[in-house]
């Protein structure tokens, strides 16, 4: 196997290591929005991501389970409001995901170019 082939195999294997929690269009949208704000409430995320309320809720729970976000519930005028914030762990995971995807895409482009 040539050096180039083994390099490409490394990148193909990298695909298996991609964070499957982040590697979902819905959750990626959520994390990208949260990465750009300090915190946001549920309604803001619904409007910004375009996800349905049920879909957003399910994905938020999943992200909270792995510690990528925190959800603070409070009551404003007797109506519950959830404020969602990206954790440091979540930010690191997102950056790592970005780096992995960039590596894979660069390898693919290099392969297509050769």
């Amino acid at each position, binding site marked *: 196997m040539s050096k180039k082939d083994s390099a490409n195999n490394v990148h193909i294997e990298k695909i298996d290591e991609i964070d499957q929690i982040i590697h979902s269009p819905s959750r990626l949208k959520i994390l*990208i*929005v949260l*990465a*750009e*704000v*300090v*915190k*946001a*409430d*549920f*309604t*803001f*995320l*619904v*409007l*910004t991501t375009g996800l349905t*309320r*049920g879909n*957003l*809720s*399910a994905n*938020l*729970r999943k992200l909270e389970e792995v510690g990528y976000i925190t*959800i603070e*519930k409070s009551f*404003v005028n007797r*109506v*519950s*409001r*959830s*404020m969602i914030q990206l954790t440091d762990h979540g930010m690191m995971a997102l950056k790592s995901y*970005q780096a992995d995807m960039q590596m894979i895409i660069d390898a693919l482009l290099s392969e297509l170019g050769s």
Partner: protein
Amino acid sequence: MNTIDSHKKLETELKKRAFLTFHNDGIIDILMGWDLVVIGVSLYLHNMSPLTAFIGLGPLLFYGLLKYEITLPRLGHAQFRMHRSFSVWLIGAVGGVFLLAAVISGIFIRSSSWFVGPISFALMGIAFTMVLITGFNRILAYAILIPLFFIVGFGLKFLSPEMIMATGGILMVVGIWMLVKFLRTHPIQAEEDDLV
């Protein structure tokens, strides 16, 4: 485009979208329209006084409360990172000076013909401080253009009390139409319907 640039672009895009939808409720249009109607009526009746200024500008004090009660429950709330540069702080400080000038000149105003001073100061002050509050530099262009139009209009004498009243009336009608549309498009949905 490198990572930092794309982050900045996305943040600006989110802020712009949030800012524009935040003002689709028509509230600022209703309040500004009301101000213009009061100014127009006061000029027409030759009765500019601190009382008329209070009647005109007083409802602006409820702007925050109206946003909190009407807009935020429907659009949601996000706290953006506010990177305020020195120039934005400087603009805000200039706005504060204009507002102070508006208050002081408004207290000492004796003749309707000198109203241009306090009103211009107030408009510039509000617009400049909005740049500081929102961190949205684009408002600066409007902050300069709108008061300039006001001053030039009176300087060149093409603005009359009737025209100001009519403009204010139209703004209020547009604002009310926007508010009705906004309330229909964004009903409040209680979070307890959701699973979070």
